[in-house]
C-alpha cells in the first residue's frame, strides 16, 4: 500500500473501530452487575469488556485525529481508486481464491467429505493453470495432472487423518 492509500485506509478503519469501540462500551454497560444476586459489584461481567471498549475507542480516536491531520479524508473523494483496485490482476487472484475456498467450506457437512474435497483441489488447480482462452487440446495434460493430484491428495488426506491420526473429518 502506498502512504496515501494507507492514510485513507486509516481514516476509514479508525471510524469503523471507533463505532465498534463505542458499541462495545454501550453493550458492556448494559450487562447485569450481578449485585442483585448478592455478588460483589466488582465482579460484574461488563467491567473488562467495558475497559477494552474504552481503550479501543481512545486508540481509534487517536488514529482518526492523526489521519485527519494527514488529510486522509480528502483522498476519499477519489472514487477511481476502488475501481483500479478491482481491475488489478492480484486482486482478482485473491478474490478467486477466497470464493472457491468459501464455496468449498459451505459444501462441507452436507456431502460426503471426499467428494467436494477432490472437486475443490481439481477446480483450484484448473482455475489458476488452465488458460480458458486457448484451445483445449494442448492443455489436456494440465487437466489430467490436476485430476490425478485431486484424487491422490483426497485419498491420502482422508486415509492419514482418519486412520493414522484418528481425527474426525467434516
Amino acid at each position, binding site marked *: 500500500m502506498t502512504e496515501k492509500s494507507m492514510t485513507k*485506509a486509516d481514516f476509514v478503519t479508525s471510524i469503523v473501530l471507533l463505532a465498534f469501540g463505542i458499541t462495545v462500551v454501550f453493550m458492556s454497560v448494559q450487562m447485569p452487575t450481578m449485585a442483585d444476586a448478592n*455478588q460483589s459489584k466488582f465482579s460484574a461481567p461488563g467491567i*473488562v469488556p467495558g475497559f477494552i471498549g474504552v481503550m479501543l475507542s481512545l486508540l481509534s480516536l487517536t488514529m482518526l485525529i492523526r489521519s485527519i491531520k494527514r488529510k486522509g479524508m480528502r483522498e476519499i473523494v477519489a472514487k477511481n481508486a476502488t475501481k483500479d483496485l478491482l481491475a488489478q490482476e492480484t486482486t482478482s487472484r485473491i478474490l478467486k*481464491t477466497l470464493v472457491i475456498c468459501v464455496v468449498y467450506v459451505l459444501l462441507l457437512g452436507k456431502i460426503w467429505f471426499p467428494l467436494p474435497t477432490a472437486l475443490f483441489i481439481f477446480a483450484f*488447480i484448473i*482455475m489458476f*493453470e488452465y488458460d480458458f482462452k486457448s484451445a483445449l487440446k494442448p492443455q489436456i495434460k494440465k487437466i489430467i495432472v490436476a485430476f490425478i493430484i485431486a484424487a491422490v491428495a483426497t485419498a491420502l488426506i482422508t486415509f492419514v487423518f482418519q486412520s493414522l491420526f484418528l481425527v474426525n*473429518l467434516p
Partner: protein
Amino acid sequence: MFQGLQLFGQAILSFITLQTLFNAVWATELGIIIGMLPGLTATMGVALLTTLTYTMAPNDAILILICMYIGAIYGGSRSAILLNIPGTPANAATTLDGFPLAKAGQAGKAIGVATTGSFIGSVIGMLFLAVFTPMIGSIALSFQSFEFVWFAIFGIIICGNLTAPKDPLKGWIAGFIGLFVAMIGMEGIHAYIRFSFGSSDLSGGISLIPAMVGTFGFAEILSVMRYSKVEVVKSEIGRIMPKPREVGKYWKTILRSGVIGTFIGAIPGVGEDIAAWVSYDLAKRSAKPEERAKFGHGSVEGLLASETGNNACVPGAIIPVLTLAIPGSAPAAVLLGAMLIHGVRPGPLIMVESPMFVYQVIAMVLIATVAMFVLGLTMVRPLVKVLQVPRQKLMPIVFLLCVVGSFALQSRLFDVYVMIVFGVIGFILREMEYPMAPLVLGIILGDILDKNLRRALILSNGDISPFFTRPICLGLFILTMLIVLSRAKWMKTLMGKLKRRKAAA
C-alpha cells in the same frame, strides 16, 4: 541446582526410546519443510500438528510440537537463502546476507552456516530456559491478581510496540481487538454469556486454534496466491558442513545474538522475527568496519546473527509459557494452548506441581535441536525440490489442512467458519500493516485480564491503589507508561523533523 540436573537427566533418559526418536525425526523434518515453504509458517505448523496429535500421550504430542516449532523456524532459512523469500517471517533478516551468498555460488556454505547458527542459538536459549524457568517460577509464586492484570496490559503494549515499529498505534489496536475476541462467549466467574447475540456456537467462545489457523494459514494462502510465479534460483549447492574456524571467529556475535534472541523471546508475544532483526542490527553496529561493509552483500557474520537470534528465541518464548502461562511468541501461544488441551497447567505453580514437566520440556528442546542440526546438514538437495512445487498445486492442499485442522479438535463446522472469518480479517488487517502477534496474544491474555482484574477489584473492594503501590505492579506500570510515552515523543520529533525538512525544501 543438582536436583535440577538430576531431573533433567531422568527426563533425557525417558525420551531415549525408538518411538520418541522416530517422532522427533519426522516432526523436525516436517517442520523444516513447512518452514521452507513460503506461506506455511511455524505458527500454522504447530497449530495443525496440535489437532493431529491430540489423541497421543501428552509427552509425545508436546515433543512433536516443539520439534515442529524448532524445525520450522530453522527451515525458513532455506528459502531465504535459495529464493530470497523468507520461509517464515522469522527469516526475513536471513535473506539480506543468505541470498547474496547463494548468488555468489556459496549456497551450501550459507546453509551450513545458518544450520550451525541455529543450533548454537537453540542451545543458548535452552540453557537460559533451564536456568531461568525455576527462578522466575519461584518469583511468580508471589504474584497475585494485581500483577497479572499488569502483565496482560504490559504484554499487549510492549508486543504492539515492538511488532509494529513503524506505527505502534496499530499494534496496540490489534492487541485490544484480540482482548475483545477473548470476551466473546461465557465468562469464567458468573457464567454470564457475553457478545453471543443468541448464537449457541458463539456462546462457547472463539477457540484459539481455529483463529490462529485462520490468521496464520488462510490469510497467508490469500497473500501467496496473489502472485503467480516463484523465481526458483538454480544454485549449485556445494559443501555444506562449515569449517569450525569460519564460524568460530564470530563467537562474540553468536553469543550476543543468542542472549538477545532468548531475551526477546521471553517478552510476551514478541517473537522470532523481531529477535532476528534486533540481533542482526546489533551485529552490524558492532562489526569491524571491513566486515560491516559486507553486511547485506553476503556477510557470514550477518547470516549467523540473524539465524542464531531467531532460533535462540524459541526456548526463550517457552520461558513465560511455563512460568506465567503467557506466550512469548505466536507459535508459543499455540504450544500453550496445546499444553492446556493435554491437561498440563503451566503457570506459577508448575515448579511446585510438576517440576518434572519443566525438565521434560528442556529435554524436548534439546532433542529437537539435535534433530534439527543433523537433519539440517543432511538431505539438503532432495528437500530443495519441494520449493519447486508450483503454488497453485500446493495451496489447495494447504487449505484442506487448515480446514481439517480447525475442524478436528471439537468436530464442529463452526470452527471452520471461524478459521475463514479470521483468515479474511487477518488478511485485511495485515494489508493495512496491523501486526498479527498482538492480536493472538490478546486472545490468550483476554481471559487472564478478565478474571484477574475482577478478582483484584473484589479483593481490594474497588480500591485501585494496589495496582500502583505493590512493587512489581509499580514497576510494570512505569514500564508500560515509558513505552507509550517514548513512542509519543518519537512521533513528535519525527513530525518536527518532517516539518523542518518540508520548510527547507
